[in-house]
């Protein structure tokens, strides 16, 4: 595949006026959503999924990509400028950024966050351009057995590694797989789990399920526990940085990118670990470690870069293998299926214009975000004055609107409410939501690969491990499943490591903020 030629073609498509508008809309929406607490890029993309049925797939994905990257930018603005950060200090950026803002250096904090995000996003997208075709080239040589094994690995990684309660992760996965079963069986044409209801014959629309679980479930859950707080925005002028700040920031930017990208690409990497690692690294390498905890610019530069690079990294498995590694990627894959586009290694072959236009628009979106956020960050913060009733009623409103517009039938709203209540129950009982969505999206595809593999081996189950890649993957799977037994043997050590990490991050031990709740020792005892 001629990478550079395709990329240039992609730029040509992405730079058309219409698509530029979509990119702009995407980054604006993404930033707004990132600023506002409680929302997030995954929910926003889910809410917009039904709308995009009427749009060109290329334009829709350009918008989604803008939302994805924009969400990162917006989040750092809030954590830096909010006077009493509270929960948002679970974002590592807020630890140093907020202190900087209180010391009157909010402009510098915002600037380093924005520029660092731009640097990381651009480098990350460039790495995506380099790596994705390589992965695709490798993946195309895989047969159904290997592909099936990789999907099992992805499902397992998200379920068993993320989150602290395996049983609940697997329960969530089971529910997702069950929901994915509803509808007509692809090969034999028989209806499954439709109970004679004709409207279910086509299965549950992934879009409706995604909106129900992410948006309605979240809104209902927050409604049940509406928090009453009143903070203020720390006043700030235009973001800018002095020469000294530049000197102190550029290396953390690069290091952060190096941390973020690989973690984003791994099935259970996520963005918390790399930002944490980046923070700890910057603190260790800093010539002024005593500044950490009181507003060290490196502590903002590194983690922000890691965050954005992780977002770019997520796109590697998503575009090249069709594997989602976080909620937003899962929802974007749902969008692919909604358009009838099969995600996977053949995506680059079958829809090159779409993929390369998407990638090109990531570069464009990144630049737009820098231009928009640098002067406008303080203005964005004013969005925080929107009362929560409007926010959450708005979510429910648009969720209903979107779900209804898919088929213009009120039955979809019944599904929306039912699954929304399921989402509510899951949040109440600590079942993670991500395995459900990934199970829903990957389940049918995994089943397809399973049946193909066994068809090729004429029903012989050893066909599942007939390819070397499949064998390797299954070994990894076995390791992941065996991990808790191994962990129990070395049980003492993880707790001390976590408390050591916590002590590094919170030298003043004011005990309030929880950088990563799942690692604090007393928490990990109470969960399985």
């Amino acid at each position, binding site marked *: 595949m001629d990478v550079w030629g395709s990329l240039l073609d992609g730029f040509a498509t992405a730079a058309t006026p219409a698509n530029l508008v979509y990119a702009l809309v995407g980054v604006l929406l993404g930033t707004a959503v990132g600023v506002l607490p409680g929302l997030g890029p995954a929910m926003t993309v889910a809410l917009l999924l039904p709308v995009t049925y009427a749009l060109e797939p290329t334009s829709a994905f350009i918008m989604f990509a803008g939302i994805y990257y924009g969400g990162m930018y917006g989040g750092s603005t809030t954590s830096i400028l909010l006077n009493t950060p509270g929960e948002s200090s679970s974002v590592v950026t807020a630890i140093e950024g907020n202190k900087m803002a209180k010391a009157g250096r909010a402009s510098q904090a915002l600037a380093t966050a924005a520029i660092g995000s731009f640097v990381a996003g651009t480098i990350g997208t460039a790495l995506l351009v380099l790596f994705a075709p390589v992965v695709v080239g490798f993946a195309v040589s895989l047969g159904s057995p290997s592909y099936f094994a990789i999907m099992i690995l992805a499902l397992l990684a998200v379920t068993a590694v993320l989150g602290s309660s395996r049983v609940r992760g697997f329960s969530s996965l089971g529910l997702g797989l069950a929901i994915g079963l509803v509808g007509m069986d692809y090969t034999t044409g028989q209806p499954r789990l439709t109970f004679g209801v004709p409207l279910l014959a086509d299965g549950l629309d992934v879009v409706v399920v995604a909106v129900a679980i992410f948006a309605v479930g979240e809104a209902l859950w927050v409604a049940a526990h509406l928090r*009453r707080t*009143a903070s*203020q925005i720390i006043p700030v002028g235009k973001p800018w940085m002095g020469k000294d700040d530049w000197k102190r920031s550029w290396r953390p930017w690069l290091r952060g990118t190096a941390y973020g990208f690989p973690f984003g690409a791994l099935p259970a990497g996520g963005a918390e670990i790399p930002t944490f690692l980046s923070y700890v690294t910057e603190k260790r390498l800093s010539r002024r470690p005593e500044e950490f905890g009181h507003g060290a610019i490196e502590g903002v530069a590194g983690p922000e870069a890691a965050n954005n690079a992780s977002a770019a990294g997520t796109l590697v498995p998503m575009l090249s293998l069709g594997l989602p590694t976080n909620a937003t990627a899962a929802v974007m894959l749902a969008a692919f299926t909604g358009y009838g586009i099969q995600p996977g290694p053949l995506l680059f072959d079958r829809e090159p214009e779409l993929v390369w236009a998407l990638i090109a628009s990531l570069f464009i979106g990144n630049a737009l975000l820098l231009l928009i956020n640098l002067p406008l960050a303080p203005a964005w913060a004013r969005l*925080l*004055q929107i*009362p929560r009733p409007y926010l959450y009623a708005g979510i429910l409103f648009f969720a209903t609107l979107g779900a209804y517009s898919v088929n213009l039938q009120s039955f979809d709203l019944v599904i929306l409410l039912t699954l929304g209540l399921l989402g509510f129950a899951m949040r109440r009982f600590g079942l993670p939501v991500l395995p459900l969505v990934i199970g829903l999206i990957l389940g049918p595809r995994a089943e397809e690969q399973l049946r193909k593999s066994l068809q090729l081996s004429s029903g012989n189950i050893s066909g599942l491990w007939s390819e070397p890649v499949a064998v390797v993957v299954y070994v990894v799977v076995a390791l992941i499943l065996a991990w808790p037994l191994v962990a129990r043997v070395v049980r003492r050590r993880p707790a001390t490591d976590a408390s050591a990490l916590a002590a590094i991050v919170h030298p003043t031990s004011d005990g309030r903020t929880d950088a990563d709740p799942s690692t604090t020792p007393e928490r990990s005892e109470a969960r399985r």
Partner: protein
Amino acid sequence: MSVVVGYVPTPEGEAALEHAIREVTQRGTRLVVVNTSRGDALVDQRYAQPDQVKVLEDRLDAAGLEHLLLHSIRGREAAEEILEAAAEHRADLIVVGLRRRTPVGKLLMGSTAQRVLLDALCPVLAVKA
């Protein structure tokens, strides 16, 4: 016996506070400062933050006034909180700041001063910035 003042960190609120302090000094009663928020939004610029509270407390201490700060977030409107405080602390006087609002603005956004004026049981002093 007390004077209740609705305080916000804005010019009108400061003016109201000034007048309230003067009244309390004259009457020799207690000053009850009401600064609350509905807590509906993450950011409420009218709710005094810890540093602003400190400045306020220092100022009242320096003036040697007996004072009480009501600083809760209970999901109630400011007017409600002020009226309730007035009833609870048996206020002789309520002081509120007056903000310029057009009739449409009052219809859409409400007016704390208007509600207090209409529903208070004791005299109300409305102060402009």
